[in-house]
């Protein structure tokens, strides 16, 4: 499906004459844009099947699957993946509770400090990643904690917690506060209200926030590279291979991730579409 067909007229807005020319321009632009977006992916993918020893598509040495085998036998990469997953799980475990707490406080705190608190809690998002890595490293040094998976996890959680918090905040802002009041009015205790009303309401967001936290953790380089010490994650391993001996095994990883994402995204879209149809049917 090309961008052009995607943008095909569907609403009357774009049937107007004056809009038509603008739409042609917009469509052409979208096509160029999506080429820009996907060309690297294509190159990346092709290079994963090239028998040449370095990632390349111009030095074509024939199709091969050997890099897939090589990946399976690459203990460092596999270990890196395990480490990444470990760190990712740690990040979820740390950032979700932090994000939730921050969000609860910010939605309920009626004080002029609210703005300040908000500023502080979102600041990690607005801070360059390397600075978070550096400050974490320097900070924990004072407690004799050297760089490693733990520090990488802490450094990442610092800003990922902020992302989670924003998601929870957005959700909480859409919460109808009268629900909690209604529950209280019906005689429920505050813990009961939290368990039966607030948490279930947040549950989908907690799930998405966890997934996003995990993905951000896996993907992170700038922060991790400073805090990882002698250990490594998948990404820092790739990073250090840039400094030493890049092979198309790296591309294979890329291809696998792309395929996984497309599958996940397609499933998501199908589910959503079905949901939408179901809702329309009602």
């Amino acid at each position, binding site marked *: 499906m090309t961008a052009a067909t995607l943008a095909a007229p569907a609403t009357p807005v774009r049937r107007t004459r004056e809009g038509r020319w603008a739409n042609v321009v917009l469509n052409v632009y979208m096509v160029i844009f999506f080429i820009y977006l996907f*060309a690297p992916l294509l190159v990346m993918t092709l290079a994963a099947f090239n028998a040449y020893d370095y990632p390349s598509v111009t030095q074509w040495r024939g199709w091969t699957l050997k890099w897939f085998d090589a990946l399976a036998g690459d203990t460092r990469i596999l270990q890196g993946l395990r480490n990444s997953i470990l760190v990712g799980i740690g990040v979820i475990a740390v950032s979700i509770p932090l994000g939730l707490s921050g969000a609860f406080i910010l939605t309920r705190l009626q004080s002029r400090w609210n703005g300040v608190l908000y500023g502080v809690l979102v600041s990690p998002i607005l801070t360059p990643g390397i600075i978070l890595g550096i400050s974490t490293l320097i900070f924990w040094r004072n407690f004799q904690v050297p760089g490693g998976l733990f520090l990488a996890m802490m450094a990442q959680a610092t800003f990922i917690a902020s992302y989670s918090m924003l998601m929870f905040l957005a959700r909480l802002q859409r919460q109808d506060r009268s629900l909690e009041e209604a529950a209280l009015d019906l005689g429920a205790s505050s813990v009961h209200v939290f368990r039966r009303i607030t948490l279930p309401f947040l549950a989908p967001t907690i799930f998405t926030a966890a997934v996003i936290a995990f993905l951000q953790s896996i993907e992170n380089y700038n922060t991790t590279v400073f805090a990882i010490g002698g250990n490594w994650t998948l990404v820092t391993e790739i990073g250090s291979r840039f400094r030493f001996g890049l092979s198309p095994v790296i591309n294979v990883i890329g291809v696998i*991730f792309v395929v996984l994402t497309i599958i996940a995204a397609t499933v998501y879209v199908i589910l959503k579409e079905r949901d939408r149809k179901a809702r329309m049917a009602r």
Partner: protein
Amino acid sequence: MGALVRTYGRGLTTVFVALTVLWMLGMIIVPQLFMVERSLWTRQETSQITLQIDRLYNEISTLQFDAQAAADADKPAIEDRISDIEEEIAELEAQEKAPQRVYTLSNYTRMSGLHLRIFVRTIFYAALVTVLALVVCYPIAFAVAQVATPRAAAFLMLGLIVPYAINELLRVYAWLMILDYQGVLNTFLDWVGITNLAAKQWIPFLESPVSVFVAMVYAYILFMVFPIYNTLETLDRNQLEAARDLGAPTWRIHLRVAIPHAKPGIAVGCIMTFMLSAGSYAVPQIMTRGTSGDWFSQTIYRQFFESNNWNVGAAYAFTLLVVCIVFIFLMMLIFRVGVRDIAR
């Protein structure tokens, strides 16, 4: 706080407050303060005397090694020589001072002209990348938010997200493969006949900052598209129609209706993009192969991991942080958005 206790009870509230304080202090504020502290002192450099002592010790070691292999006859001479040197060392060691920690602003003030230039250039380039990304992303955000059908919009969204499945490093590396001397683009141009690779005629994309811009805009598209998309999505299509009905041409509709509406999103997108590109380490590192100018982040990295000068590194990092903060405030001022608007 009262509202919090009333809704969640005392126990839960305590947990929330404790966690938030831990996060705020232990992970955000105090580490930054430690970094700042680190940037405020230096250790006096080792003196020439220390160097001299080191070298004398090495001489002894060499003599001792030689002594093992030497004929017995030569050994006394060597030993004499060793003891001479040891005396000399003793004398020098008396003069040697242990390095001291000195609090000073010199880590900031001593930024060399070169580093300052790199710094300024980085900020300038980051601003340029931001503008570029804005120009590239606005039409896309608009198309997805306002023009496409919900179905098409979902697919477009997917198209935007999929490239982000692969890591930033790989994404950028892919651009290297495209823009290189024997990259896809030059090979294509060679095939077309514009360049001649065999004769070493090629377009040196990589040798100009353009390649960094291309890759960096690419790397951060999402961070620009999403905030703008989010605001444009809330723009009532009727407003666009109303503007058109009142006779406005497309450009004026954007200028007067769509862009003003998207302002908070544009501000957030610009802040994110600027912050990411000013602090980007991987993109310039990979895209230039170190040939064209450094970005400040590379300089910081080198202070930490090459020059082994954490203190200067911390000072540089803090400087970068300050600029980012200033940029954020500037954007908030220009676009008249509050911190709260960054929540999306």
